[in-house]
């Protein structure tokens, strides 16, 4: 078990709910992932919509903690409004704070993000800011009261994995008391393993599962990868060396004293 804000969770996998081939596959993928937290969003209803929301009906029975996002917001003001709506709609004070600064790579806007985070913390939210891996921004967010940070691995939906491992390792080293969750850009389970081996507390992803050829199977692969990565971090990897070192002791092996011929 580990602690995410005030909740104790068994899984370090946080899963998004968008872009699945069907609601049934979404449900099956969530169950296979064993994720304890799933992300959700909100939309304006069209008059053509029925009052019964099939998505809501499908996920509310799964018993996962909900992490609503502020997707589509480009200013702190819009993000704050969206968070307040989400708090009532989903009955949670958790908010994945997204304030986008650039349309091309969906890079978070650092100034608006910090402004929104400060305001939302004052309003009683548990803010999960989706941020870049910039150390100074992350320190500012922590100084603003964020207990959890969600730096990107690479741009949302790119599947490129950890573009700047040095920056992520630096965050882990410099912010040892902050819950760090890699969010965005994860494409394959090996990327998730890499982040977890660094000591990240969790991984949040969506597209890598939902757009996989077999989403349910991929959800299982990520589940196992995240567990493996965490186990490796806790076990403590061996130090890397620049020269070979025999794993079998050569002393007293039959030919140990023979010279190697040129």
């Amino acid at each position, binding site marked *: 078990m580990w602690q995410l804000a005030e909740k104790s969770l068994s899984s370090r996998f946080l899963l*998004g*709910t*968008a*872009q*699945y081939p069907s609601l049934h596959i*979404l449900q099956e993928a969530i169950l296979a992932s064993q994720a304890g937290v799933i*992300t*959700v*969003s*909100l*939309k*304006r*209803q*069209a*008059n053509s*919509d029925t*009052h019964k*929301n099939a*998505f*809501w009906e499908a*996920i509310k029975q799964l018993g996962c903690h909900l992490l*609503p*996002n502020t*997707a589509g917001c480009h200013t702190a003001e819009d993000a704050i*409004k969206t968070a*307040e*709506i*989400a708090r*009532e*709609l*989903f009955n949670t004070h958790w908010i994945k704070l997204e304030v986008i600064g650039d349309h091309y790579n969906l890079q978070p806007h650092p100034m608006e993000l910090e402004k929104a985070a400060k305001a939302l913390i004052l309003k009683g939210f548990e803010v999960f800011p989706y941020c870049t891996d910039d150390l100074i921004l992350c320190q500012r967010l922590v100084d603003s009261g964020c207990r959890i940070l969600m730096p990107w691995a690479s741009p*949302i939906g790119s599947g490129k994995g950890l573009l700047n491992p040095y920056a992520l390792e630096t965050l882990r080293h410099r912010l040892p008391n902050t819950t760090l969750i890699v969010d965005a850009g994860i494409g394959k389970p090996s990327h998730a393993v890499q982040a977890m081996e660094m000591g990240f507390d969790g991984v949040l992803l*969506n*597209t890598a599962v939902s757009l996989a050829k077999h989403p349910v199977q991929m959800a299982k692969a990520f589940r196992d990868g995240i567990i493996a990565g965490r186990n490796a971090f806790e076990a403590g990897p061996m130090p890397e060396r620049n020269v070979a070192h025999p794993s079998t002791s050569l002393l007293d092996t039959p030919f140990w004293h023979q010279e190697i011929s040129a």
Partner: protein
Amino acid sequence: MGVLLKMIISLNNEPCEITASMLLSELLEKKGYTNACYAVTVNRCFVPRSEHSVTTLVEKDCVEIITPMQGG
């Protein structure tokens, strides 16, 4: 008997005729929003559930119903 005055507001971006001075809670009930799975904005401002019964709608108000959807 007085004549009930009517007015036009926007509901989910479409015109909607309602009785003048109708409360937001009355509109929601009339339109069948009886479950808990929605939130409401009026003129792009969030109106908490606790204020639905004290929010009086006026001509040209823009009411939008916000519902859950998939997200990453």
